[in-house]
């Protein structure tokens, strides 16, 4: 381990670098809108369950009503987002993160 001072300047240097900013924006530009989207989709579901009960109780086929389909769709969207995130992370985030990590490790242990 080198001194704290030295480490700190390395981190600030990396933080200001083009590639780190690219990594951060790839991460945030995917994760933030997606979080807003799934929270809004979930809150919509909860609000409808409280305030739009007539609509939620509409039968679609047999005894399957809108409420059940809407609920199942929450499961489907959760699974899909988890899967899509892993694709995004493996393709767009991990390679860049690994590259930057090796670089910092070289600088801080040198």
């Amino acid at each position, binding site marked *: 381990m080198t001194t704290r001072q030295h*480490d*700190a*300047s390395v*981190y*600030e240097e*990396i*933080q200001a670098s083009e590639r*780190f900013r690219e*990594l*951060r924006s790839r*991460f945030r530009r995917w*994760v933030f809108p*997606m*979080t807003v989207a*799934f*929270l809004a989709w*979930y*809150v919509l*579901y*909860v*609000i409808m*369950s*409280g*305030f739009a*009960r007539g609509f*939620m*109780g509409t039968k679609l*086929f*047999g*005894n*399957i*009503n809108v*409420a*059940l389909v809407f*609920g199942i769709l*929450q*499961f489907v969207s*959760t*699974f899909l*987002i*988890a*899967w899509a*995130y*892993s694709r995004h*992370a493996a393709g767009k985030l*991990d390679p860049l*993160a*690994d590259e*930057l*990590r090796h670089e*910092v*490790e070289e600088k*801080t242990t040198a």
Partner: protein
Amino acid sequence: MSHETLSTILFVVFVAGTLGITFWASRNTKTAADYYAGGRSFSGLQNGLAIGGDYMSAASFLGIAGIIALSGYDGFLYSIGFLVAWLVALLLVAELMRNSGKFTMADVLAFRMSPRPVRTAAGVSTIVVSIFYLLAQMVGAGALVGLLLGIHSEAGKIWTIIGVGLLMIVYVVFGGMKGTTWVQIVKAVLLMTGATLITLLVLGKFGFNLSSLLGEAAAKSGKGDALLEPGLKYGTEAQGIAGKIDLISLGLALVLGTAGLPHILIRFYTVPTAKDARKSVQWGIGIIGVFYLLTLVLGFGAAALVGGKAITEQDKAGNTAAPQLAEAIGREIFGEVGGTILLAVIAAVAFATILAVVAGLTLASSSSFAHDLYAHVFKRGTATERQEVVVARISAFVIGAVAIALSIFAQSLNVAFLVALAFAVAASGNLPAILFSLFWKRFNTAGAVSAIYGGLVTSVLLVVFSPVVSGAPTAMFPDVDFHWFPLSNPGIVSIPVGFLAGYLGTILSKEYNASKYAEIEVRSLTGVGAEKASEH
């Protein structure tokens, strides 16, 4: 042989097996990283199963199946909140925490702030949340085991609570994170197997036609189509607008609370890298999601095959719906013996579930006491690793003993609301502190401390003055009335208060440390300097 005897035998087998694992784990638990984080050597799948094991409590297995059986759709609403919550953990918390922390939630906060105040706040909040959750689980255990084993005397329930408490202490004190994680894995596999088996039998009975199962459930429940729609339990029309706002408040606490629960957060440290943390949350989402889909069939299956009347005769809250369903479907398909065997299996799985969850909670609170309060606040970082682990083990024992004593005291009170309160505190205090410290450059010590105490105190106070504590027939103290807050769930007020307190605390303090933010940002996103798995 009666089902009680068979259940007891199966449960003894489970206890013997998990104790064996615990003693094996204790021989491999030497360093602090072993005790707190299982040597960080679990795979994504193993930790994903353990996440499921920690999360699928008896409240969610027996409780949600029971709510669906009696109140139908509203139980499903609960499980959806529990599931979607994992996306917050996956996208915003798991990997970044794995990269920047060591053993506890406070590690991430203390990284760029004045360590003593933030560790004190995080330690207090961790212990409070865990004890609330622990009490609800243990009091529930006393009642449940009584129902399942036919023990109805007060003394029987007290001995059950003591027995569950002692086992949980043994798992945690000796097995540490390694032993506890294996207990979670075994439990998750048993629970998933049991739930899948009953689900397939129930669906098979209805020719794998969900619609006819739902139709039968609606008809037999005595509630008709209302069973298939929201509104029988949460935010009923009789409760008016306040009830509906309460429903939204509950939904918010469920979806935002998970990623702030201490016993869930420490799971992310048990894997070697952030990528494994990501994989483990994905496995967790898959397992938990499938499990909640199974409980949907179990709940409606119990309504259809056991019927609302027979369920409420056993337990008014419906907690025995799943075991009763197991018996009914077993008897119908395999005869009397089949019914006995399936009931015994599901009852034993339920005990295993309770045990595993309380062990996870005891581990989280004792880790935080030893690592945050003892090592960093009292000893100012001068404690050796060895001393820290000894203190962690002693505090697991003490917290376990306190939990047993409180549970015996609280046994006759209605404390089921404590789970929802634990989620509310986690969402209002812990989550703002974690998110701000990972994503907000300006965030500082005053902000972190204000967010945690602000969220914690607001949630607890609002609940104390809510109808769940006084002023309602179902309240903890039904004979007095000092309530003024109309909602049972504080989230809709306390979550914004927590975030606002974090914001105001930050801007009102001058402290600002750009270089430490650079370090945590680079480390959390790239994994530089992340704690490595230990070699054995």
